[in-house]
């Protein structure tokens, strides 16, 4: 089959690889009908997250049809089922899964010993996202093996196009969890840094959950336009002072809820000297992540407020103003998304037309154009915000 394979920094290729095979009774093989490139794939593209190996198949936003089901699935997932594959692989049986903390499933990371060493304790296995999270081949491919398929996949009905359902695999639940864990109240101002795909989903989730005002922060006109289309107030950080503007919008008190949809690769600009400092340290391998957004959020957030972090951080950050965070009594909530906790409810909301997540797709291409699309997406060319690939 064909698959997008990581060969090194900025080196993704559409390779011919062997087909995946059932290894365990709870495995299923999916024929991929649609997959997408995620912003967090770019962290791997840039080799900022350790433990990728040449030959790793990329991708963690995938849907398709079950073509082979392991015997242990006992008919819970069967041939012909149409499924969305969340990026988190979950056993459904461990204590964390029973709590609904699926992204820290204790059993699905088959390279648990690595995660134990690096994180202290293992987290869930993830598709196409380094050997720290299991080294599972990803879904930017014609076929995908799904371990623990009965508890991992979300079955979806026929008759709804892939484009509306695909993002149940990651960015929609991720944006939703970012807003839900902020516990949005009708009086809240929610400030969202980053209007990429997860940012766009967070904006819409915050609107649906009834925030008084949603403020979206970015520097790319097309992304700000898309944010505005959903009713967000926008701040272009290249032309406006974010802190001043947020204080102005909140009567000088700062937003109650701040959401970081940027993560480890914040924009670098001489007008924000800390970002140049972070980039220099990152190049010298003295720091792995650029936490400008975290610093700004801690500074501007209202005392007693909450900081929600769906953006991916990979390792070590520097100069975090913990004094301000501690004295202001801020609450931090973060983590990979517990996708399976939200998918059934979000599927209902799509069916009821509360939201149509396909709004975010700006580019569709066949799988073999994947390497080119990685570059287009990374360089933000052609007003690209979200790429869907068709194997």
């Amino acid at each position, binding site marked *: 089959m*064909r698959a997008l*394979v990581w*060969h090194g*920094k*900025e*080196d*993704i*290729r559409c*390779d*011919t*690889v*062997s087909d*995946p*095979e*059932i*290894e365990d009774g709870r495995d299923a093989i999916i024929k991929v009908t649609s997959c997408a490139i995620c912003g967090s794939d770019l962290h791997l593209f840039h080799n900022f997250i350790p433990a990728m*190996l*040449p*030959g790793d198949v990329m991708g963690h936003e995938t849907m398709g049809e079950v073509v082979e089901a392991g015997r242990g699935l006992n008919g819970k997932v069967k041939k012909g089922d149409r499924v969305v594959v969340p990026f988190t692989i979950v056993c459904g049986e461990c204590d964390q899964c029973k709590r609904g903390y699926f992204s820290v499933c204790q059993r699905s990371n*088959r390279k648990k010993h690595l995660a134990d060493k690096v994180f202290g304790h293992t987290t869930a296995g993830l598709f196409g996202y380094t*050997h720290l999270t299991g080294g599972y*081949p990803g879904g930017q491919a014609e076929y995908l093996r799904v371990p623990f398929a009965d508890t991992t996949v979300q079955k979806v009905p026929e008759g709804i196009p892939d484009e509306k359902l695909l993002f149940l695999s990651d960015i929609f639940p991720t944006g939703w969890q970012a807003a*839900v864990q*902020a*516990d949005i*109240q*009708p*009086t809240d101002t929610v400030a969202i840094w980053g209007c990429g795909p997860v940012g766009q989903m967070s904006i*819409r*989730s915050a*609107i*649906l*959950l*009834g925030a008084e005002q949603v403020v979206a922060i970015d520097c790319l006109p*097309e992304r700000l336009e*898309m944010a*505005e*289309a*959903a*009713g967000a107030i926008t701040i272009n950080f290249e032309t406006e002072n974010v802190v001043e503007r947020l204080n102005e919008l909140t009567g000088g008190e700062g937003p109650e809820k701040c959401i970081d949809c940027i993560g480890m690769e914040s924009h670098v600009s001489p007008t924000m000297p800390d970002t140049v400092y972070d980039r220099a340290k990152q*190049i*010298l391998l003295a720091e792995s992540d650029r936490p400008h957004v975290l610093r700004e959020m801690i500074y501007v957030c209202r005392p*007693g407020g*909450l900081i929600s972090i769906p953006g991916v951080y990979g390792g070590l950050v520097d100069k975090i103003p913990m004094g301000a965070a501690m004295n202001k009594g801020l*609450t931090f909530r973060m983590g990979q998304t517990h996708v399976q906790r939200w998918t059934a409810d979000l599927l209902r909301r799509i069916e009821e*037309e*509360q*939201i*149509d*997540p396909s*709004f975010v797709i*700006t580019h569709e291409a066949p799988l*073999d154009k994947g*390497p*080119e699309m990685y*570059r287009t997406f990374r*360089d933000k*060319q*052609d*007003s690209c915000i979200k790429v869907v690939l068709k194997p």
Partner: protein
Amino acid sequence: MTNISSIASLSNITRSEGDPKVLRSGPSSRGVPDSLAKGLGWFSLGLGLTELLAPRSITRALGMEGKEALVRVYGAREIGSGILSLSVDKNLGLWSRVAGDGLDIATVLTALREDNPKRGNAVVALALLIGITAVDLMDAQASTARHSRSVGRKRSYRDRSGFPRGVQASRGAARDFKTPPDLRHAPPLASVSKRTSAA
């Protein structure tokens, strides 16, 4: 199609039996300017280290004795350019190489004086520098053009609300959602105010 790289092949030992393994490799997302930038980056590192660690052999070869400190500074500069050229900010690295080439040329020109017994070496060095400057300049231009954000169309997304029922009707449309107890935060302002006024 190219053959599978040896590293990709070696990494197969970490994969389980049912995992896909690379059979044939396709074209890379990395273009010629990117690969050249990588090569120039490693070249910079090599040259920079030589300048830093063995400046005397360079000054002696060019008849520029006494300029060892300057060569060391150039070595540090070269290492900086190399690191940048190998990073995702390769354009910055390539342009810093072009600027560095200018400095190198200006410095070697001073060694072309008639009384320099190593003038011949200086001429060869200058020719090499001019050649490498041309390569640096071409690659810097090609890489900048390849990765420029201005490639492609400028599109408008003003009509992409994502709310089939419209923005106004969607505000608070998911209020039926009950925040799970483990994700609740501070009480809403309204309930605090009520309690305060009741007291």
